[in-house]
């Protein structure tokens, strides 16, 4: 420990630190040694006293009027620094307002962009939907207008005597449609479901809703010698038709 202190005192770091000539690292080292070791502190204090004594030897009377000039500029400096402080406050406020409004506009822009994407998607969806519907209507028109199209009128059996449906089948274009024009009222937990037997497999064509499907042509999958069925099923439809509940069938 002693050696370390002696080594430090033998170096010129303390002297450089005294004059303000030391580097940052040297200053930190000097400050550490001064705080930690009394002998370094003592030497430092002695050097400080000697420096003052030495400097005082060269004291020279300051010129008349210099004190007033210096006091005046120090006061001016104080006012200036207050002004700077005020400017700093004003600038900070301006920056905050700017940051706040930037954030607001950024946020607004973001939500507008989201909305824009949403609207674009909606338009795309509608366009797609419309195309499909138009295609559907075109096909219906072709079928209905075609001289080869045959029309079958269906009447319900059993509980569904009121059920009336018209099927349009075109063997040339291989298209078939059905229009369920009247659906009898069923108990609340029952519904009509349409099926088609195509190449020996039963295909679910969906549930006929009470009102919406009136006057609407439903496309049927076309196959040679296919059979269409309408059954009464529990509400929501069934995965396979209940054979005993067949209320109508169409052979085409």
């Amino acid at each position, binding site marked *: 420990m002693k050696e370390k202190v002696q080594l430090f005192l033998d170096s010129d770091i303390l002297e450089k630190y005294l004059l*303000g000539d030391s580097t940052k690292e040297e200053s930190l080292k000097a400050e550490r040694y001064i705080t930690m070791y009394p002998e370094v502190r003592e030497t430092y204090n002695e*050097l400080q006293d000697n420096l003052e004594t030495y*400097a005082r*030897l060269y004291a020279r009377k300051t010129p008349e009027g210099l004190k007033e000039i210096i*006091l005046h500029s120090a006061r001016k400096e104080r006012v200036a620094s207050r002004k700077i402080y005020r400017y700093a406050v004003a600038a900070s406020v301006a920056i905050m307002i700017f940051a706040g409004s930037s954030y607001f506009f950024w946020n607004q822009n973001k939500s507008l962009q989201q909305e824009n994407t949403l609207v674009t998607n909606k338009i795309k969806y509608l366009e797609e939907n419309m195309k499909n519907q138009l295609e559907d209507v075109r096909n219906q028109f072709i079928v209905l207008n075609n001289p080869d199209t045959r029309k079958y009128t269906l009447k319900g059996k059993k509980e569904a005597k009121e059920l009336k449906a018209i099927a349009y089948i075109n063997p040339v274009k291989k298209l078939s449609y059905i229009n369920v024009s009247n659906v009898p009222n069923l108990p609340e937990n029952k519904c009509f479901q349409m099926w088609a037997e195509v190449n020996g497999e039963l295909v679910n064509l969906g549930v006929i809703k009470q009102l919406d499907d009136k006057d609407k042509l439903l496309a049927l999958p076309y196959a040679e010698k296919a059979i269409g069925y309408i059954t009464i099923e529990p509400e929501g439809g069934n995965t396979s038709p209940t054979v005993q509940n067949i209320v109508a069938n169409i052979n085409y």
Partner: protein
Amino acid sequence: MSTLIEKHIVSLLAEKDDKAISLLYDNYGDTLYGVALKVVRDEDLAQDVLQESFIKIWKKADSYDSSKAKLFTWLFRITRNTAIDKLRSVNNKSDKEVQIDVSDVYNLGVNGIRPEFMDIQENLEKIEPKYQIVLEALFFQGMTQQEASDELDIPLGTIKSRLKIGLRELGKIYGATMTIFLLLILLP
């Protein structure tokens, strides 16, 4: 310097009370002006340096830490560095001009010394010239130790040891300078 006045000034500085500047000027102005003049060797420049130093002291007032340095040491560092910077910037602007100034001012300076400071030589004689030369070069001419070594043609190691011994030798002046302080205090 009485530590009581020093403490008073330090507390005024910490409060940014501008009475501090006035007190600093009264108590240290002459010494700091002497330091500035010794470095720049021109009275006008020295006045500029003193003014700039006081502004710096005023601006940095709240950064003064009495545990790190005595008030005078802090003031000395600021003034010396300001003076050295000033000298360098003037030298950069025009080398020739300054050299003429230096020779003119040097004479003026010697003639202008007031009688109460005339015993500087007497006091300095207590210190061997080999130390004086090194102290002057490092304190007032803003030379680094290497520069002083080159300029004075003395090995760097010798510069280092002379600075160390010289600074310690300065303690010898202390007794003598007390009379100067008394003179300063008694001056109107």
